[in-house]
């Protein structure tokens, strides 16, 4: 019986291998996390990507689109394999997605080697913004350091004297805490990195924060871990004593689980769902209408990716072999972004505003609101390590 299984599966692998796809439909590979505690992020991205395609009549530059979603299970090694599969087996024209900086860094080589035009919709590893920038790889999000840098500025404004930093021990975690230290002028009384992603008990770190006597805590925990951290922060009775400042730890995905616990914990972001521009209003309204959920910045960044790819295909009117043409077109960032229009830096990372956001309660509903603009047209500090120049 097993033997039959083997033969059957072998046959399947043989069967599942299309001869070189001729360019009638555009194939897009989408890599994100669709299982495990961070699956919610992947779903938000997929929803937004689907919505974006709907808005374009499921066509890019007039060509029908087929999307292949792959689950990186949040593991770098799996991410590489899925990336290779998309390139070598599905022969996709574009690849989009990537939540995790470490998954992106692991997958970057096959992407660059194969010259696959890629739109990264979240991960913002510093190396990828700097020396490892690539002509065919674009980002619709940010470089990791930018968001916490904005938070650092805000904490300066508030005159916060000292801070204790806590984050996960992986590429993004290290970037985030480094970012805050760049702009924050007060004292950094401690810096803790936890095992990622399997360490979910932060009691040790919280005790340390308390003992450090710091006036504030800054934290970065995306996805489910964020919920765990906030919960334990509240349980440990610190909320009343040491105010918390966060990046990517509280978002539309975690608020429904955190409810009151999330109130009064400020964060910074390049996009908030109430940004007053037409593209955004349409995006948020249609998203809520279609999915009965609020989109998060993960979704927003991914929604922009659709528009960006569309602009590329339009510019070369469907000739996907003309990668140079598409690259030049994309560098213009010539589309209506839901964060308001922006320009790309030489490293293909957006130059954009960052806003202060806060959680407010509307009836039984909890939403994020833009409080203020912290910094305008901020460019990441790694772009000068990237040899590329725009329009060349």
């Amino acid at each position, binding site marked *: 019986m097993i*033997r039959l299984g083997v033969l059957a*599966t072998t046959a399947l*692998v043989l069967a599942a291998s299309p001869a070189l796809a001729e360019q009638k439909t555009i194939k897009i590979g989408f890599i994100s996390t669709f299982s495990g505690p961070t699956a919610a992020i992947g779903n938000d991205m997929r929803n937004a990507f689907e919505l974006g395609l709907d808005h374009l009549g499921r066509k890019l530059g007039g060509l029908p689109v087929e999307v292949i979603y792959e689950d990186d299970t949040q593991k770098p090694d799996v991410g*590489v394999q899925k990336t*290779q599969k998309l390139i070598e087996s599905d022969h996709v024209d574009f690849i989009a997605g990537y939540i995790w900086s*470490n998954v992106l860094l*692991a997958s970057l080589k096959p992407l660059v080697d194969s010259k696959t035009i890629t739109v990264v919709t979240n991960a913002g590893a510093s190396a990828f913004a700097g020396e490892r920038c690539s002509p065919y790889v674009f980002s619709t999000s940010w470089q990791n350091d930018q968001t916490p840098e904005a938070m650092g500025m805000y904490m300066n404004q508030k005159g916060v004297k000292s801070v204790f930093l806590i984050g996960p021990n*992986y590429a993004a975690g290290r970037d985030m805490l480094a970012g805050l230290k760049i702009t924050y002028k007060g004292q950094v009384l401690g810096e803790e990195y936890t*095992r990622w992603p399997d360490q979910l008990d932060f009691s040790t770190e919280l005790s340390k924060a308390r003992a450090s006597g710091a006036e504030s805590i800054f934290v970065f925990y995306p996805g489910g871990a964020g919920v765990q951290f906030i919960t334990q922060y509240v349980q440990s009775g610190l909320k009343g004593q040491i105010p918390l400042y966060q990046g990517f730890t509280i978002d539309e995905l975690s608020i429904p689980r955190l409810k009151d616990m999330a109130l009064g914990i400020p964060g910074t972001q390049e996009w908030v769902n109430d940004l007053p521009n037409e593209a955004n209003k349409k995006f948020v309204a249609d998203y809520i209408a279609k999915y009965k959920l609020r989109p998060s910045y993960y979704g927003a960044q991914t929604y922009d990716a659709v528009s960006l790819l569309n602009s590329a295909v339009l510019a070369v009117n469907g000739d996907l072999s003309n990668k140079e043409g598409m690259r030049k077109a994309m560098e213009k960032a010539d589309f209506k972004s839901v964060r308001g229009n922006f320009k790309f830096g030489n490293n293909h990372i957006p130059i954009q505003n960052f806003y202060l956001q806060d959680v407010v309660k509307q009836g039984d509903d909890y939403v994020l609101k833009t409080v203020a603009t912290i910094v305008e047209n901020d460019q990441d500090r790694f772009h000068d390590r990237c040899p590329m120049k725009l329009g060349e």
Partner: protein
Amino acid sequence: MTASLDPTLVARPSLAFTPRTAFTAALLVILALFPLYSLVTGNTFVLTLFTRVLILAIGAVSLNLIMGYGGMVSFGHAAYLGIGGYAVGILAKEGIGSGFVQWPVAVAASALYALVVGALSLRTRGVYFIMITLAFAQMIYYVAIGLDRYGGDDGLTIYKRSDFAGLIDLNNKTLFYYLCFAILLASIYLISRLVNSRFGLAIRGTRSNERRMRAIGFPTVRYKLAAFVIAGALCGLAGALLANHTNFISPALMHWTRSGDLIVMVVLGGLGSLFGPVIGAVTFLLLQEGLSRFTEYPDLILGPILLLVAIYVHGGIGGLLEGRRGG
């Protein structure tokens, strides 16, 4: 080599046309032809996938030497994949790209680790041995996570594959595939010689009845240790191949579930049979890959299959093909 003895006295490996030999032969032919297939269809991923299968098969073959023939159940065998892989990765990052350096270092490092671990672990028996090998593998796993300079938990990208001074270009997927295939066959041949040599009989005897082995005058531990080291070195080579294959290494390579995978492959294919590990590796990985193509919940099927094999089948699939059943 000798005619002086009645030939019936030596159990010659039967070349009879059993389902098992037929299956093995068919499998080898298929494996040998894959590059051709992917050339025709232009689907290079199948090649990538099967290169991975071959490499892990080498790991399984090495585990089979100590587990199947030596009776040493190591629950930490993935550590060697990691050590071999990191040897290549670290040297590459430090600018030493030559395979003539990287691969020997990978093998030597693994052998050395095996020597230390074996020397300590072989004082224990049975389940304690399983657990102590696991413990050491976990240590190495966390060491890798702690290697800040080499990516820590995020792993390390390898920008250039091992360079063999133009002798063989590992960037050529087909060539690399056949290299792995050759190494796999070579290691199987090596082990086929090993297990029937005096050394092989010594470790097989030890597996069968260690007390008696000592009673008739064998210092069993040193033979077990030697086997342990050989297996480690071979798996280290597999690790070096794997690093070159994925161009990326991370501690995940050494996670205990990887060691579990290797054990599953060996037991699935049939303990202590030459080609069992290959059958096991191919089956296991194809089941994973294949099942996920026609169901969204592959492990819902794979899991019970493993359980059933554990309960009802003696000698894994190999045994099944010979009609051997459990009891």
